[in-house]
C-alpha cells in the first residue's frame, strides 16, 4: 500500500499496563490528502486515535506509520485544533497564529529575518477565514466562532501535511458550525492536506469527509468504513439532497447498533 499516507496496523492501546483495552485491533489506511471523519459513541477512544497518529501516545501493540515512517515520538508536521480553541490570552490573534512558526523548523530560525513575509502570510490566512481586521484583537474580544477560526489558522499556518481535529466545532451554535464547515472545506480544497476529524456530529462527518469511520463502544474498534462520494464542493443545498440524508441515516443506524450492542 504505497499510496497510503497514514497507516494503522493492528493497533491496540491500553493507557497503562494491566488496564482494559481502550482501543482494540484497529486498522486504517488514509491516503495523502484524504479527509476522513471518525464517529462513535463517547469514550470509544476517538481522541486516543488522534494521539496515536500524532505520536503523542505510543500504541501498546501494532504500529502506526505516517509518511512511510513508523511513528516513534511526537510528529512535527501536525496541526491540531480542539473543541476548546486554546488561544493564548496574552497574544493578539495575529501572534497566536504565528505561534507555530516560532516553534516549527525551519520557520523558527527564519522568523525574525522574514517577519514581514510571515505576517503577510498569517494575515492572508486570517482573511480566508473571515478574520480580516481582527488581527490585533485579543482572544477574549472575539466570539467563540471567531476564536475557533483563529485556532484553525494556527493549526494550518505552518502548512502541515496532517491536520487533526478533535470535535473542533462542538461548542459552536449550528449556524456558525456550518459556516466553519465551508471554511474548512475551502481551505482543504485549495491545498489538500490529510485530515482526521473526530466528531459526534454525523451531518458534519457526512458534509466534510471522503471516508467516515464508525467506531464501536469501548474498547474502540472500527466497525464500518463508509466511502462518501458526494460531489465537492458541498454546500448548504447538498445537505438537503437525498444521498446526503441517506448517508446520515445510514451512519445513524450504525451508531444505534453500536450503542445497543
Amino acid at each position, binding site marked *: 500500500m504505497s499510496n497510503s499516507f497514514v497507516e494503522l496496523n493492528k493497533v491496540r492501546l491500553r493507557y497503562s499496563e494491566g488496564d482494559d483495552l481502550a482501543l482494540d485491533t484497529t486498522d486504517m489506511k488514509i491516503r495523502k490528502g484524504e479527509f476522513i471523519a471518525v464517529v462513535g459513541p463517547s469514550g470509544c477512544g476517538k481522541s486516543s486515535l488522534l494521539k496515536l497518529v500524532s505520536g*503523542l501516545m505510543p500504541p501498546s501493540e501494532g504500529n502506526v506509520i505516517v509518511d512511510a515512517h513508523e511513528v516513534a515520538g*511526537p*510528529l*512535527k508536521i*501536525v496541526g*491540531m485544533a480542539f473543541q476548546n480553541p486554546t488561544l493564548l*490570552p496574552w497574544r493578539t490573534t495575529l501572534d497566536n497564529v504565528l505561534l507555530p512558526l516560532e516553534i516549527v*523548523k525551519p520557520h523558527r530560525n527564519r522568523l525574525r529575518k522574514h517577519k514581514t513575509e510571515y505576517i503577510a502570510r498569517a494575515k492572508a490566512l486570517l482573511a480566508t477565514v473571515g478574520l480580516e481586521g481582527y488581527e490585533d484583537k485579543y482572544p477574549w474580544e472575539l466570539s467563540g466562532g471567531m476564536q475557533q477560526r483563529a485556532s484553525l489558522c494556527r*493549526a494550518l499556518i505552518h502548512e502541515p501535511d496532517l491536520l487533526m481535529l478533535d470535535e473542533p466545532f462542538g461548542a459552536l451554535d449550528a449556524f456558525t458550525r456550518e459556516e466553519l464547515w465551508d471554511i474548512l472545506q475551502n481551505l482543504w480544497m485549495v491545498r489538500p492536506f490529510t485530515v482526521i476529524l473526530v466528531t459526534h456530529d454525523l451531518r458534519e462527518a457526512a458534509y466534510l469527509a471522503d471516508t467516515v469511520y464508525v467506531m464501536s463502544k469501548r474498547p474502540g474498534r472500527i466497525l464500518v468504513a463508509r466511502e462518501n462520494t458526494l460531489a465537492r464542493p458541498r454546500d448548504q443545498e447538498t445537505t438537503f439532497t437525498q444521498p446526503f440524508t441517506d448517508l446520515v441515516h445510514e451512519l445513524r443506524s450504525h451508531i444505534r447498533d453500536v450503542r445497543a450492542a
Partner: protein
Amino acid sequence: MTNRTNLSKASPWISAAVLFLLWEGIVRLFHIPVYVLPTPSASLEAAWQYRDAIWMHAVHTLYTTLFGFAIAVVFGVVLGALVGSSKAIYIAANPLLVGFNSVPKVALVPVLVMWFGIGTVPAIITAFIISFFPIVVNVATGLATLEPELRDVLRSLGATRTDILFKVGFPRALPYFFASLKVAVTLAFVGSVISETVASNVGVGYLMLSASSKFNMPLVFAGLLVIAVMGIVMYEFFNIIERRSTKWANRANPDG
C-alpha cells in the same frame, strides 16, 4: 458616576480615618493608660518626635526586607519552575516544602543567630525563608495548570520542554507570580521585623523592642504604623506592576 468613583477612590482613606477615630475615642473614653494602649495621635506625635531615629531604622528594615525578598523571588521562581514542570519533582519536594513552611520562623531566628551572629544577616534570611513559599506555590501552580490540549498542540509541532516553558508556561504563570509577590513582600516584612526584634541592634523591630523596654508605648505603636505603611506601599507597588504587565488576566475590570 464620577461621584461614585471618587467615593470608591477615597474609601480606603475614609476607612483608615474611621479606624483611627474609633481607636482614639475608645482610648479616651475608657481612660486606657498610655503604657497599655496609646492613642493614635500620641503615636503620631512620637513618630514626629523621633523622626530621625525612625527614618534610620525604617530605611534599614526596608533594605533588609527587600534584600531577603529579592532572594526569595529568585529562589521561588527557580524552585517553582522545577516543581511546576515535573511531576516527579513535585511529588518529591511537596511534603518537604509544606513541612518547612509549617515551622514557625521565629523559632529559626536563634538558630540563625548562632550561625551568623546578631544583626542584619539573620534578618535578611528570615525575610527570605518566610516569603519564598507563596512564590514557589504560585509559580508551580501557574505552570502545572497548563491545558493538556495546548501542550499537545505544541508538542505536535516539535516543541521542546524549554519551548513550552518559555512560550506558554512562564507567560501563563505571570499573573500567579505577581499575585504571590504581593503576599510575599508583606510576609518578608514580618520576617525581618521578627528577626530584628529578637536579635539585632538596628531596624524598626529593634526600635520597638527598646522603646517598649522603656515603657515608651507611643513609640512602639509609631514603629508598628511605619511597618504597616511600608507594607502597604510595597503591596501597592507590586499591585501596579501586576496590573500593567498582565492586563490580559484582569480583563473583567481593566481599571483594576
